[in-house]
């Protein structure tokens, strides 16, 4: 069924494409929002991804690769959007003073440090973190999605994971800045 939709969309069927886009929209947005850490940029990235997907769909060789291909477009769009800001690391978002959910992720300071550590990651590292720890893709799958060698995917994932660990461990050694940040 899904393959049929992709085939139809590839032939220029707008309705088929809109069905595909609607079904993919939420998960694309979730990933984009996590990578970009900014709602407006994530919305733009998703829109750009879907428009590019529509335009480039005839060039998709294997309809069964549609989802992975969408992720690749999305990550590229995120990188594009991310450069709207001067530096990724300059994106600062106020942390809620009270946890909005049960505190499974640890302390507010922990989450703050995770976010700080995450913000310091390069875009490609963020992408592999989100695709792996949120979307559940393996390093091999991420490599196929992004069109990079598996070793590169593993390397990025390893570096990013260690960077986040370092951020948390640094937090354990010094007072948190969680409540002193500037929005």
């Amino acid at each position, binding site marked *: 069924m899904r393959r049929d939709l992709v085939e139809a969309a590839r032939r220029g069927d707008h309705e088929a494409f809109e069905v595909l886009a609607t079904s993919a929209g939420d998960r694309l*947005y*979730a990933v984009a*929002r996590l990578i970009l850490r900014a709602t407006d940029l994530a919305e733009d990235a*998703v829109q750009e991804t879907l428009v590019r997907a529509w335009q480039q769909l005839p060039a998709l060789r294997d309809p069964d690769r549609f989802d992975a291909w969408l992720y690749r477009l999305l990550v590229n769009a995120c990188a594009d959007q991310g450069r709207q800001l001067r530096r990724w690391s300059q994106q600062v978002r106020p942390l809620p003073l009270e946890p909005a959910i049960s505190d499974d992720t640890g302390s507010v300071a922990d989450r703050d440090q995770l976010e700080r550590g995450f913000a310091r990651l390069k875009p490609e590292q963020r992408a592999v*973190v989100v695709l792996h720890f949120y979307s559940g893709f393996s390093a091999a799958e991420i490599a196929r999605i992004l069109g990079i060698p598996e070793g590169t995917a593993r390397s990025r994932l390893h570096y990013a994971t260690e960077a986040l660990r370092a951020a948390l461990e640094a937090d354990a050694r010094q007072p948190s800045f969680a409540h002193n940040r500037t929005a």
Partner: protein
Amino acid sequence: MTTDQQHGERISRWLEAEAQTQLPEHVLRATFERTRRTGQQTGWRAVLGRLTMNRTFFALGGTAAAVAVVLFALSTFYNQPGLGGPPIAPSPTPAEPAVESTLTPPPPTNEPTSPAVEATPRGVPPPGEPDLGAELAAQQEFINRLGDTLVIETSVGTWTWRRLAPGEPVPPSREVQVPPGIPQTEIGSLDDVLVHSWLGSSARIGDVGLIAVPMGVEINWSRVYDHDQPMEGRWLERDRLLEIVEVDARGDRGSMLDVLEVSVVPGEPDTVEFTSQDTGRLVLRLGGDAMVPAEKLVRAGESCGGWGACPLAVWHLHVDEPGGGEWVNPPWHGLPVDHVGVAAAADGFVAVAASDSPEAPPALHAWGSVDGRTWEKIPSPSPIDLPAGSEVTGLKITGDSSRLLITLTAHDPGDPHLEPYLSWTATQAGNWQPVNIDFLGAEGRAELSEDGWLVLTVTVGLSYGDYGCEVWLPTQGADWGADWERIPLISQPMPPGMGSQCHAAVGDSVVAILGGHSGLIHFWIGRFDD
């Protein structure tokens, strides 16, 4: 210390907690509005997407992109006000705003008739010609046969360039719909033009040059490569067509990257020839007094591949002499260094970044000249020694304002992921100030307009080895360059791998950016509101 599994689970929980999983409806609505009025890649582009690119293809594309960059730079150079180009009036060109905007076709005008332009159904190639894509109406006549009207219809919109008849007043600029602020006008559809042309024939490549004018954009130059035929091109001017007499495109398209010898054709003082020092071939011939540059042309070290004993060639033209003067390579006084990296020149001022040895860090040397023939070294201001380990990647001097911008890359050994990009400005080699910009990137180019409007164009490293272009705007006025702001109009990732380049061309308040990579060339046009 947590285990890897615990650490991973913590990250997963944090991401789950942070995730927002519902895409706002307005995003989908806006998306579908765009896709409903946007075509899909068809024909050759679709085929291109399914092809496995080989190295030859990429090499060809990279070379073509590089050539286009140089040609674009040349065309821009010769058409800038104050550089000997024709006075530029507001263009009738409808610049295409962001995708959300509505394109407005130009109003009906009394267009001069042109035998080169015939009414041909759009999307139908001429008999015997390959189908270069149904969306590119201009290809019906091929872009080397540009007449008075050029229409480019793409999946994004339609642009019409119309040449004014001699004496015809320039239409008001209402056709130029530019949002307030610093707008972005993305001419991404020209990518389509290029891609179409790429694949229209295995041997034919075409591209279109743009020139930024104060109120818009007009196509200024066009060409078609063909392996089997001499390349032809025409300048599309507002009140005349200037033909490029001959450009030999056989084989070595990269010759435009050579040091170019420039000479005035004997007996034709208004015609200038560019000859490749590398191949000895005539690369370009320009005719018409308005096309003769009044500036020095500097090519230095560009093909040397980094620091080394690169020759420095400074050519300049004295336009105040009878017959327009001649291009000469002046005797060079006081150049104590062989290891020239980057050089730049403006009226009476030449700067060279050089080092005493290949291993030594570069220093900046500057020479001044009154007559353009003899040069005296200017004492180095402080700080003039560039940081150890740095590499000068760009140098630009403006003429009237005598501002100097140096771009260099300094690798921070403490952070392998951060490559600060440092620059200095100076006025007549004095008053040096660091520019407070840093980039994630390793190379860049400095491009300044004569009035100091612009700008630093850098090739920035993006994810997955991609590259893109950024443009920065300095503060204006007495504190010029004291602060810099990134202009959020140009951001386009380039596919990885092959020689991405960025080039900024500056009109009074217009910037045109060309970024090239292995198979595509991107144009962006933006205008600053005063």
